[in-house]
């Protein structure tokens, strides 16, 4: 499909010649997305190609683009940093223009007193954090890491990460918002809507947080979010991370008022009990089960290898076979990482004592090797900044999360053994990375203050190997099957798999949901806000039986 000359010219008039292109290779670079090969015909790495890519420079331009697309019935797919197949056009046959929001890249305001920042879509988490820590503030960096857009995680998709227990989920931290709706209206939510500033998402002014993002977010399917305010929290650490070590093994000294631990437990029951006790005692600036994402069998060997810049993956097997690493591997089978931050030395000493008491009550322990300066300083930097998060791709370039059903800690530990057994069995084929069945990763809490956790099973595969891709697809399906057979929701892969479905298949799934009424309600919202259907199906809705299209 291609844009008509008239449509192209209309869009070009808005953004200027240099900010629009319909070149096939250029547009293909937008279609190329991680995980596409798991859902696309012939395991293609390309999602549907946009008919043009645009790089707008202002909210006014975006509004004009959206109005033009309404006029010509062209779909609009915005993205900020653009990582994930959700960010690409979704359906073959749809004429979709891709809006690359990289020119909207400003930190507009940091209000220290009221503890919020106003940002545009292409401000990534680390940029914001680098400015915030200079003034003693911090922001939650989501699990996908330093390279992600803060606005996107707050408005459009998932917003949890290692710091969520202290700083809140980014959906919780979303304050006022500027939104170009699919109709082309500019809507200002919360306090911004009444001209009172950015400080509140709910009012005085329209509170539309539920419609804008809900739980999962519209993932670019419901207009364009152009600015938002995000709630900040205090940072009792240094104004800048002084980086030591040789790339990639960067690390930074741990301040006296911080503690960095990997904690291990004799059983999942003890592991879960420790979660509750940490919640009860308001512990944890950072709290995450992170390092086993590279596999229960191989994770510790990997981290030791990674911290020696002279080593490569060629060395991992030899490292894994060392007696001390074998011992460490067994020791860390049930482990998570925690960073304590004290407002004073007395505070941190108190927190340390409380943690020791929790360990005494649960039978847990601090993993000795991980408290040695090299790995502790690495852990501190890694989890504070999440600048190495794409190590989840390190083995072969492909990974997918599976399982990841959120709930209370004692709920999550019920599915962990199932997930572990399933993955270990899948790995026997040799078509997936054999890193061990327990690659369960997840934030200590997905809500500020604790109370809700989840564990995502990381499965690694080679996207350049079609048989490995097939094995990954099978593993995704099996994870849903095993989960549902044991009474758990199908989990994290459901929205992944849905990308590859036809509209009919998708609607059948929605119709079977526990509360299909929600999807009908969302259709009503879509009819109101997107009468010409220029957003894609990332905003989920069910057609009326009498009328399969909104509007």
């Amino acid at each position, binding site marked *: 499909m291609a844009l008509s000359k008239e449509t192209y010219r209309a869009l070009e008039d808005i953004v200027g010649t240099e900010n629009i292109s319909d070149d096939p290779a*250029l547009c293909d670079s937008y279609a190329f997305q991680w995980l596409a090969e798991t859902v696309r015909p012939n395991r293609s790495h390309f999602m549907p190609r946009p008919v043009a890519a645009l790089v707008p420079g202002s909210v006014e331009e975006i509004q004009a683009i959206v109005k033009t697309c309404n006029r010509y019935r062209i779909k609009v797919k915005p993205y900020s940093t653009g990582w994930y197949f959700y960010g690409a056009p979704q359906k073959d046959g749809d004429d979709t223009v891709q809006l690359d929001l990289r020119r909207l890249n400003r930190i507009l305001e940091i209000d220290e007193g009221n503890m919020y920042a106003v940002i545009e879509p292409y401000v990534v988490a680390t940029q914001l954090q680098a400015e915030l820590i200079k003034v003693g503030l911090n922001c939650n960096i989501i699990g996908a890491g330093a390279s992600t857009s803060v606005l996107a995680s707050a408005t459009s998709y998932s917003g949890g990460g290692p710091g969520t227990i202290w700083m809140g989920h980014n959906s919780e931290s979303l304050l006022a918002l500027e939104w170009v709706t699919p109709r082309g209206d500019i809507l200002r939510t919360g306090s911004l809507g009444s001209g009172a500033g950015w400080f509140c998402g709910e009012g005085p002014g329209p509170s539309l947080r539920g419609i804008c993002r809900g739980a999962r977010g519209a993932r670019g399917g419901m207009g364009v979010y152009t600015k938002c305010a995000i709630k900040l929290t205090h940072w009792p650490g240094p104004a800048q991370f002084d980086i030591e070590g040789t790339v990639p093994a960067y690390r930074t000294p741990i301040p006296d008022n911080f503690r960095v631990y990997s904690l291990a437990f004799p059983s999942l029951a003890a592991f879960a009990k420790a979660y509750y006790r940490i919640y009860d005692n308001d512990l944890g600036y950072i709290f995450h089960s992170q390092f086993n994402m590279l596999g229960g069998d191989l994770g510790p060997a990997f981290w030791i290898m990674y911290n020696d810049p002279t080593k490569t993956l060629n060395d991992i097997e030899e490292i894994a076979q060392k007696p001390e690493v074998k011992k460490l591997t067994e020791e860390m089978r049930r482990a998570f990482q925690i960073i304590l931050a004290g407002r004073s030395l007395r505070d941190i000493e108190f927190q340390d004592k409380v943690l020791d008491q929790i360990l005494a009550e649960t039978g847990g322990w601090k993993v000795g090797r991980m408290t040695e300066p090299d790995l502790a300083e690495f852990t501190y930097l890694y989890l504070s900044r999440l600048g190495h998060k794409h190590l989840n791709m390190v083995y072969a370039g492909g990974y997918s999360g599976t399982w990841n059903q959120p709930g209370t800690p004692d709920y999550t530990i019920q599915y962990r053994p199932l997930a572990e057994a399933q993955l270990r069995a899948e790995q026997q084929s040799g078509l997936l990375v054999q890193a061990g069945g327990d690659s369960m990763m997840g934030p200590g809490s997905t809500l500020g203050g604790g109370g809700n956790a989840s564990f995502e099973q990381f499965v690694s595969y080679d996207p350049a190997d079609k048989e490995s891709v097939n094995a990954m697809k099978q593993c995704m399906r099996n994870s849903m099957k095993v989960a549902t057979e044991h009474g758990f929701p199908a989990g994290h892969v459901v929205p992944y798999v849905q990308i590859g479905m036809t509209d009919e298949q998708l609607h059948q799934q929605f119709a079977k949901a526990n509360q299909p009424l929600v999807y009908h309600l969302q259709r009503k919202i879509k009819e109101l806000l997107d009468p010409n259907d220029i957003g894609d199906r990332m905003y989920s809705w069910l057609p009326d039986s009498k009328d399969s299209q909104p509007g």
Partner: protein
Amino acid sequence: MALEDYRADMLRCTRCSYCKWVPFDQMKSGKFAKGCPSVEYNRFQPYSAGGRLAAALSLLEGRSSYTERFVDIAYNCLLCGSCDVSCKVCRYNIEPLRAMQELRFKLVEDGQLLHQHKAVIDGLRKEHNMLMKPGAGRGKWAEGLKVKELTKEKAEVAFHAGCRMSYDGRLQGIARIAVSLLQKAGVDFGIMGENEFCCGGRAFHMGYRTEFTKCAEYNIGAWTKAGVKTVVTSCSDGYHTFKRLYPEVGSNFEILHMVEFVDRLIKKGAIKFTRTVPMRVTYHDPCHLGRQGEPYAPWNGKEKKIRGQIVVYEPRKPRYNGAWGVYQPPREVLKAIPGLELIEMERIKEYAWCCGSGGGVKDAYPGFSAWTARERIEEAKSTGAEAIVSACPWCESNFSDAVKGNAMEMKVYDVMELVQQAL
């Protein structure tokens, strides 16, 4: 190698965008957070390493073909290697920089050329330099210096001035300083003078593999004939070419940059500073001396898998990720100069912002080249430094042009010029 050999790299890219930024751990501000000049200037996704790999995959899969835009995507990049460093913070089995270089080779082989590059390459073929100057004038920079000519005499050390220093009147003095330092240290060395050829590195980066190989074969032959064992240069482009590219053509000379050489002399006590240079300066790491200046390690192997699907190499593949570039010697030299204060910019060493002169961009995309230099000068200014110092004539030339063209207040020096002032 051929572009097809990098298909797996393309498929294994996860489009994470690390290639666009400095390594995140090293990010010190929102302003100086970007690593890739190409995507910053050209905006669209395919002007990043990840995007370029996707565009190349599109070409290989027959989804797209050569267009004016595609050619622009391939050439409108400095090949500075910032992407390569940031990518490899998390990856051991992707070579973005090599894949982008291979894309250029393919374009040249397929006749997809830029006329600006073609003119320069024609000059190289005829006059053996990249500045479209007559070959006959190449040795003029050394007039009056009492230095051996290696076509007539033998010496264990060759000083290679390079195209830029040989012809650029603003920079010839740096080559003369280098010669005087080598003389003062009592080194038995010579130059090729009129018979010096371009190193070929810039032709390589433009995608002209054959022309590069011809330059390499000529220089290797000339040095061998003159009994040379060590090649010293003040040009970082030349340094990278001799050190990293020539071994593939059969070279096994010791390669030293002048900053390494002078650093050794200072440490041995062979150079003693007598004058103070009261100046606040900041140092710019040239890409080809820094992240791309790592030692060469031969490798001829293949991919294999362990633990089912972990991608490794048999035998072990050398890892070029900027860890072992030449970062300390220039800093040690500057710190040894009495009165001189060295202040660091935010983006340094393996994650330094490029000067804007490489990859054939200066020739084909002067606006992009000037913008990149201007960004760096702004970063230098933000430190409070009064001068930006580098160790590459191409960097200095581009910085000087940016300062002059934009009426900016910033002095531009080569490390050797400050050394000379302190002697």
